[in-house]
């Protein structure tokens, strides 16, 4: 009997090795061994709403939960024509980001770190994750929402498919999540920055709203970015460009001017400053800035040259 059970265990082990490769969970190991001191041991965002999903609708359902948690009222049914691909019976990752933007929220993709997921949850933001619930060679792709964790019991807490409160061992979670290359996103009101965000990624996430959102909403996000990363060039230009788009020329001018001071090598800052000054009829100042933009040149030299030519022709009129 003992021999049999040992053989069975050996067989199971070999089978497992064959099936899952050497499945290891380095992120969970590290998290349990030495969690970041600022992380609470236990978090659960009980107020995150739950939507029962229809078949294949985990994308719209998960996104609806995340958006509603960010105070954006939307139902899975309303999201379905925005993310779901009927013939694929599923939703693509980039469309989860895109649909978020269409509702005026910032879609921020987290770094592929378990620590970042837990940090966001601990700061009150539910995290949408993509899991492959099955195996790499037999994928079952699934979106779920991480709403909590428990470091003592090594569990994750999710809103997942038919389960309002799924308790998933952290290692199992990592196994399923690793197969999507640790894909995770948060949805946020404009002006709110994820705790784990880095400057470039966050500013890109705001810029991505350009085609679908109002300049006012974007400006609050660029301004928030500037509070956190005061000398970020893209955020400075972003504040200027959104002001320019709303015809707040003095405000745009101030933002560009600050960018030229912090980044004297930025042709974009000088070019946009020149254009804004010219629009206010201040051609002499505009000319100086335009010349500086042309002198810096680089990849924007053509745009800078065009601005300069335009200002010169206006001065001749």
């Amino acid at each position, binding site marked *: 009997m003992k021999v049999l059970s040992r053989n069975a265990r050996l067989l*199971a082990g070999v*089978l*497992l090795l064959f*099936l*899952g490769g050497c499945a290891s969970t380095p992120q969970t190991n590290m998290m349990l061994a030495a969690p970041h001191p600022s992380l609470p041991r236990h978090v659960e965002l009980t107020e995150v709403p739950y939507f029962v999903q229809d078949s294949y*609708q*985990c994308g719209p359902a998960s996104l609806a939960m995340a958006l509603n948690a960010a105070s954006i009222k939307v139902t899975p049914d309303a999201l379905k*024509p*925005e993310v779901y*691909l*009927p*013939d*694929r*019976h*599923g*939703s693509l*990752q*980039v*469309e989860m*980001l*895109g*649909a978020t933007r*269409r509702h005026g929220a910032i879609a921020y993709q987290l770094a592929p770190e378990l620590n970042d997921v837990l940090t966001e949850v601990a700061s009150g933001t539910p995290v949408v994750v*993509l*899991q492959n*619930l099955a*195996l790499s060679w*037999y994928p*079952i*792709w*699934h979106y779920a929402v991480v709403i909590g964790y428990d470091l003592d019991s090594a569990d994750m807490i999710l809103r997942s*498919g038919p*389960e309002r409160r799924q308790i998933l*061992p952290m*290692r*199992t*979670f990592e*196994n*399923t999540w690793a197969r999507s290359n640790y894909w995770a996103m948060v949805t946020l009101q404009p002006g709110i920055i994820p705790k784990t965000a880095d400057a*470039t990624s966050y500013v*890109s996430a705001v*810029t*991505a709203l*350009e085609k*679908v959102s109002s300049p006012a909403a974007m400006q609050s996000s660029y301004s928030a970015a500037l509070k956190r990363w005061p000398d970020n060039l893209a955020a400075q*230009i*972003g504040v200027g460009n959104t002001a320019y788009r709303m015809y707040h020329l003095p405000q745009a001018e101030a933002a560009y001017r600050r960018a030229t001071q912090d980044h004297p090598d930025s*042709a*974009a800052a000088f*070019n*946009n400053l*020149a*254009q804004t000054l010219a*629009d206010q009829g201040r051609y002499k100042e505009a000319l100086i800035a335009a010349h500086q933009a042309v002198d810096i040149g680089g*990849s*924007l030299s*053509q*745009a800078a040259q*065009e601005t300069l030519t*335009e200002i010169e022709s206006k001065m001749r009129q």
Partner: protein
Amino acid sequence: MNPQNSPFMRWVSRMVIVCMMVMGMPVQNASASIVETDQVNFHEMAMQDRAKINSFLDRQDVIAQMQKEGITLAQAQARISALTDEEAHTISGKLDQLPAGGDVIGVVFAVFIILLITDIFGLTKVFPFTRSIRK
């Protein structure tokens, strides 16, 4: 003959498609002289015009693919406009291969057994009734 299939109607619908595609093209800003924020964040705009054309082609390609996946033209256009150039490029030509989260629970029997075992060992989580024996 059904008037909807007449050569004239077909010509009209083609014209409408062309018009709608043109309408979906990236619109130039009111003032052409402002450098866009995304050009500041990514310093690789040496060939801006080519990038714009590539982005347009990527987007048209994705719209066509989305229509094949059962999305209407209007929906596809609205959806593609919410994506960045980079995102449109990632999915262009690959719409049918990329992960699409939707949890299909229609598993053949052999795979069922395998997944049951992997579920129990905490490698997978396909079935709601399984509990991992490992922590």
